[in-house]
C-alpha cells in the first residue's frame, strides 16, 4: 500500500533536473567571472578555461559511473599521481616510447579498477574503505617506484596532450588539444551511459542491487566496470595533468574529493540511483569556475576552502529542498 496515490501529478525526470542544476550554477558562476574580468568571454580564454578544467571534468565523469552504482572511488587521485610518475619513469624523455607507455598506463589503471571492483563485489568490503586502501596502496607504490620524487622526463609529444594549443583556428581562435581530449572523453562517457544499455543497468544497480540481481542484471560486472571506467578516467586525467604542467609527486592529490563534490553539485545522488553524465560535466565545470572566481576575487587562499565547503553544502541543500517541496 503506497501513500502516494497513483494519479499523483508530481512527476519528475531526474536527468533533466540534474542538467538544470549543474548548468545553471555553471552559467551563474561563469557570468560572475566574466563580470569581474570581461575577457573571459573571449573564446580564447574560454578554451583555456576548458583546458584547465579538463582533468577535473574527466575525473568527475569517471567518478559518476561509480556514484551511479552506489559507490565511491577515493583512489582516483592516487591513480593520477601514479600515471604522471610512471609516465616520466617509463618514457624517460624518449618520444618514441610515448604511445606504448600510454598503453601501459591504461593497463595499470584498468588493473587498479579491477582490484577495486573485485574486492568490493566479492570480498564485500564497502567501497569507501576499499578505495581508501587502494589509495594508500597505489600512492605508496608510485612513490616507492619513483623514490619519492619525480624521475625521468616527459617528451614534448606526451606533454602536448595537455599543453598544445593550436592558434589562429577559425571561429574559436585557439584550440587546446586538451579540450579535444575532454570532448572525446565526455562523448565516450556519455555514450557509455546513454548510448548503451549500461547506463540504465548502473542506475538500477545503484538504486537496488538486490532487485537488479534478481532481474538478471550482472551486478558484479556492472560494478566492476564502473570502477574500471573510473580508473580509466583517472589515467586520462593524469596524462592531461602531466602534459599540462609536468611531473610531480602530488599531481593527483585531493582530486578524488573534488570529483565527488563535482558530481554532487551537478545533482548526482550519493549512494546511487540518480544522476546523468551532465551532472558530472556541469558539476565539475561549476566547481572549476568557482575556483577561478575565488582566484579572481583575490580572497585569502585559506578562505577559498571555506567557500568551497559552503557551496557544497548549499548545492546539496538546495537539491534536498527541491525534493522535499515536491513531495
Amino acid at each position, binding site marked *: 500500500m503506497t501513500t502516494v496515490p497513483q494519479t499523483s501529478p508530481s512527476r519528475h525526470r531526474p536527468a533533466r533536473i540534474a542538467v538544470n542544476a549543474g548548468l545553471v550554477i555553471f552559467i551563474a558562476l561563469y557570468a560572475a567571472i566574466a563580470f569581474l574580468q570581461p575577457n*573571459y568571454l573571449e573564446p580564447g580564454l574560454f578554451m583555456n578555461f576548458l583546458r584547465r578544467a579538463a582533468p577535473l571534468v574527466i575525473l568527475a565523469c569517471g567518478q559518476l559511473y561509480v556514484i551511479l552504482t552506489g559507490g565511491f572511488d577515493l583512489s582516483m587521485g592516487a591513480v593520477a599521481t601514479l600515471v604522471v610518475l610512471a609516465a616520466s619513469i617509463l618514457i624517460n624523455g624518449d618520444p618514441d616510447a610515448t604511445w606504448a607507455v600510454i598503453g601501459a598506463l591504461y593497463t595499470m589503471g584498468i588493473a587498479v579498477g579491477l582490484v577495486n571492483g573485485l574486492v568490493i563485489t566479492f570480498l564485500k568490503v564497502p567501497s569507501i574503505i576499499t578505495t581508501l586502501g587502494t589509495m594508500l596502496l597505489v600512492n605508496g607504490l608510485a612513490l616507492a617506484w619513483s623514490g619519492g620524487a619525480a624521475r625521468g622526463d616527459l617528451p614534448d609529444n606526451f606533454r602536448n596532450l595537455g599543453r598544445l594549443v593550436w592558434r589562429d583556428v577559425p571561429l574559436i581562435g585557439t584550440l587546446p588539444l586538451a579540450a579535444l581530449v575532454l570532448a572525446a572523453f565526455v562523448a565516450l562517457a556519455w555514450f557509455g551511459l546513454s548510448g548503451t544499455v549500461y547506463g540504465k543497468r548502473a542506475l538500477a544497480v545503484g538504486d537496488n542491487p538486490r532487485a537488479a540481481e534478481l532481474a538478471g542484471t550482472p551486478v558484479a560486472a556492472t560494478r566492476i566496470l564502473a570502477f574500471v571506467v573510473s580508473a580509466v578516467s583517472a589515467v586520462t586525467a593524469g596524462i592531461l595533468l602531466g602534459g599540462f*604542467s609536468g611531473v610531480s*609527486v602530488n599531481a593527483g592529490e585531493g582530486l578524488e574529493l573534488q570529483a565527488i563534490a563535482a558530481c554532487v553539485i551537478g545533482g548526482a545522488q550519493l549512494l546511487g540511483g540518480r544522476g546523468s553524465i551532465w551532472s558530472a560535466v556541469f558539476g565539475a565545470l561549476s566547481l572549476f569556475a568557482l575556483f577561478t572566481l575565488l582566484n579572481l576575487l583575490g580572497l*585569502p*587562499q585559506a578562505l577559498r576552502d571555506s567557500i568551497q565547503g559552503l557551496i557544497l553544502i548549499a548545492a546539496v541543500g538546495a537539491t534536498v529542498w527541491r525534493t522535499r517541496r515536491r513531495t
Partner: protein
Amino acid sequence: MTLRTLLATTVALTFAGQALAQDFNDPAEFKKQREQLSMTPQGPEGQPWAQHLGDGMVETAKYKKDGQVTLCFSNAGVFNPWRVVGLNNLNAEAELHKDRLKELIVVDAEGKDDKQISDIEALVSGGKCDALIVSPNTTAALTPAVEAACAKLPVIVFDRGVNTSCPVTYIHPVGGYGFGITSGEFIASKLKKGDNVLALRIMPGVDVLETRYSAAKNIFDEAGINVVGSEFTGSDRAKTKSVVEDYINRGEKIDAVWMDAGDTATAALEAFEDAGLPYPVISGEDQQDFLRKWQSEKLTAIGPSYPTYQWRTAVIAALDVLDGKQVPGPEWVLPQPAITEDVLAKYIDERMPPLHYSLCGCQELPGYPERWGGK
C-alpha cells in the same frame, strides 16, 4: 562566547592580510642572517657540509664511545623531493662510515608530530641507540620529546630546530631570511622601481617558509618594487601554472617571479611560454630542471638554496660526538650558497632527475648518481 571568539578572529584576522607577515618579521634575525651570508666559512675547503660559520664549538668528550656504534634517526618524513634527496645523502654518508657504524636505524614519522614523539620515545626506550639524530616535523611540538631524549643520549638536531638548548648541536644553513635576502636582492637589482613581482609560495604558516617571504618582501618594499600578488601553490605544478596564467590573463605585467621554493619554477615559466610572453626575471632554487631551463633559455635568474647537504652533516656531527671530538655548536650554521649565472654550468648534471637538488654535496658519495635516481 565561542561563536563570538570565532567571529571576532575570523573578521579581524582574515581581512588583515598583513598579520601573517608580521609574525615572521624579526629585524634582528634578518640582520644576523644577512651578515652570515657574507661570512667566510671555516672548515675544509670545497666541503661545505663540513664547514661552519662563526666560532662557537662544544666539547663532547663525555659522549665518547669506542667500538661500533648505532645511530638512530627520527625523520619527520619524506613528503617532498627535498627530503628524499636529503635522506639519500644521509644514508650514503652513513655508508662512508661502515667501519664505525654498526647500524643506522631510520624511523619515519610521515609528517605527524604525534607519531614522531612516539617514535623518539620508542628509540630512546629501545636502548639500541648510541646517538640520536632528529629532523623535527615541528619546532615546538618536538621540544619535550627531544628534551627527554637528551637526558639519555647525545642528540643532534637539524633542519628545523627545537626550543631547547639540550641537543649537542643544532645543524642548519643560514636560514629563511638568508634565502629571502639572496633572492630578493637579486630581483631588486634587476628590476626598476615600480616594476611588478609575483610571489609564489608553497603554503602559509610554516616558519622556514614565512621568513623567506618576509625577508624578500622587506627588500621589495625598500626598493619600491610592487608585489602584485602572493599566491600559495601547495608545491603543485598544475596549480602554479594556473595561478601564473591567471595573472597573465588578467593583463598584469609581470617583470619578475619570486618563489619561496623552486620545485615548481619550471611550471611557472611554462605559463609564460604558453602565453607567448618573454620570460620574467625569476628566483628558483637548486633543482636540476630549473637549472637546465635557466641554461637552455638563458634566463635572468638566481638559485638560492637551502642545501640538502645538511643531512650529511648530521651523520658527521653524530659520529664526531661519539668520537669525543669538538663540534661546532650549540648551533652549527652551514654556509648557504646561491647558484648564480657564472657557476651555473658546474651544477648541471644531465644524468640527474629533474627535481634533484644540486647542492646535495653528494657527487663523491657512494652510489652516485643511481642512489639519487640518476642514470
